[in-house]
């Protein structure tokens, strides 16, 4: 199969290190700790183009800057959409912004999901927790050109029913006849009518042709390790599996070295990698 994760044109360093001013157009609560921000440039009509899987460095003024995946539609150039989980000072400050609040944005950065290269193949999208956010742009692109692909399967696992991201869209997607959607939760009370169990258990049941499948996986690293094992045991070739890695990204352009991952920098060479490129480091401790 040998599909390479696409690399985007790197922005010029002078521009890429200075954040552009953005304003919050709207903010929507997704779960008890996650919010989706629609942000628009203050001094431009359109945002820079981005590809599914890329991220921005988002700056909460006076607080700090964090890498956040873009979760919106790549065809929409009026806004950046970021789904943010409040886990630290900067993300909590971003989630606390109100309409018209200001923030800084640098980007987009990094490699992206091989959406175009997957044409003609079945596509299996496996997301865990907030890992659905960087995969949503890929789903928008896949569904926008549905006829180019074989089967499209979305497998999504979260902790509890209350942690499900984008529930309205998931319901819409599930209602489509050309998209297979399975959602599972790790724990639930008896009022939940859906599946309970880890997301890896869904791989055995999903309908796809392993020999002609591209898998896009994003979630906690342990979840991705076990997902990889299941995909390989179903017969998906190693070079058909793509993973989105996460480390402590700071500069976003491969200068500072904070996100070094083996011989690569995640901000520049990732975050989306073909598994074959990181196979020797993927399960290695302390990398």
């Amino acid at each position: 199969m040998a599909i390479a994760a696409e690399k985007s044109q790197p922005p010029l360093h002078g521009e890429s290190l200075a954040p552009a001013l953005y304003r919050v157009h709207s903010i929507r609560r997704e779960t008890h700790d996650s919010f989706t921000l629609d942000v628009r440039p203050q001094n431009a009509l359109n945002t820079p183009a981005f590809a599914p899987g890329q991220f921005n460095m988002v700056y909460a003024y006076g607080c700090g800057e964090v890498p956040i995946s873009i979760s919106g539609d790549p065809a929409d150039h009026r806004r950046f959409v970021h789904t943010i989980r409040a886990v630290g000072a900067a993300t909590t400050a971003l989630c606390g912004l109100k309409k018209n609040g200001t923030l800084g944005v640098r980007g987009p950065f990094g490699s992206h999901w091989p959406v175009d290269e997957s044409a003609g193949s079945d596509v299996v999208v496996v997301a865990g927790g907030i890992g659905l956010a960087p995969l949503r742009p890929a789903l928008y692109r896949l569904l926008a050109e549905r006829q180019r692909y074989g089967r499209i399967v979305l497998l999504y696992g979260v902790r509890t029913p209350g942690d499900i991201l984008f529930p309205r869209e998931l319901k819409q997607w599930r209602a489509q006849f050309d998209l297979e959607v399975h959602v599972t939760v790790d724990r639930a009370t008896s009022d939940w009518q859906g599946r309970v169990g880890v997301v890896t258990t869904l791989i055995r049941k999903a309908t796809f042709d392993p020999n002609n499948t591209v898998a896009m996986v994003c979630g906690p690293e342990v979840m991705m390790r076990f997902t990889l094992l299941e995909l390989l045991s179903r017969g998906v070739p190693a070079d058909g599996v793509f993973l989105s890695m996460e480390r402590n990204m700071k500069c976003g352009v491969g200068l500072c070295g904070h996100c070094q991952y083996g011989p690569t920098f995640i901000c520049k060479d990732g975050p989306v990698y073909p598994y074959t490129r990181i196979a020797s480091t993927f399960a290695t401790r302390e990398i």
Partner: protein
Amino acid sequence: METLERILAEHPFLHGLARPHLELIVGCATNVRFNPGQFLFHEGEEADRFYVIRHGKVRVELFTPGRGPITIQTVDDGDILGWSWLLAPYQWHFDAQAVELTRAIALDGECLRTKCERDHDLGYEMLKRFAQIMQQRMDATRLQLLDLYGNSR
């Protein structure tokens, strides 16, 4: 019985089983059906069977005082439910309740144990296949225990 034999022969759990062994297993099988809300078994009851789920969904749950029933896992089309029939003291450790209309094949535990004792090749085949199910469930349970998605209420 022809239909049961065909269904069981095509099921991945029994795939590759020698025909005489398959026939022994089919001799312990019956079709069953559960309406939504109906219990397949309760914690503490005698574990006298296991199920091959054909269609539907079943939740495996544990009742906890003060919190009510907590769903540990759901099983659905094609899954195997229950291994307590295989190990003494042959008692269910959890409750199992149909979430939706569920059709299954029930395999009589005592009938199977007797045949496995008489034919150790059959017994070994069954143990190997159930060990694989147990391994998958244990892996899944360990991942659940890790609380991978964390930082949640």
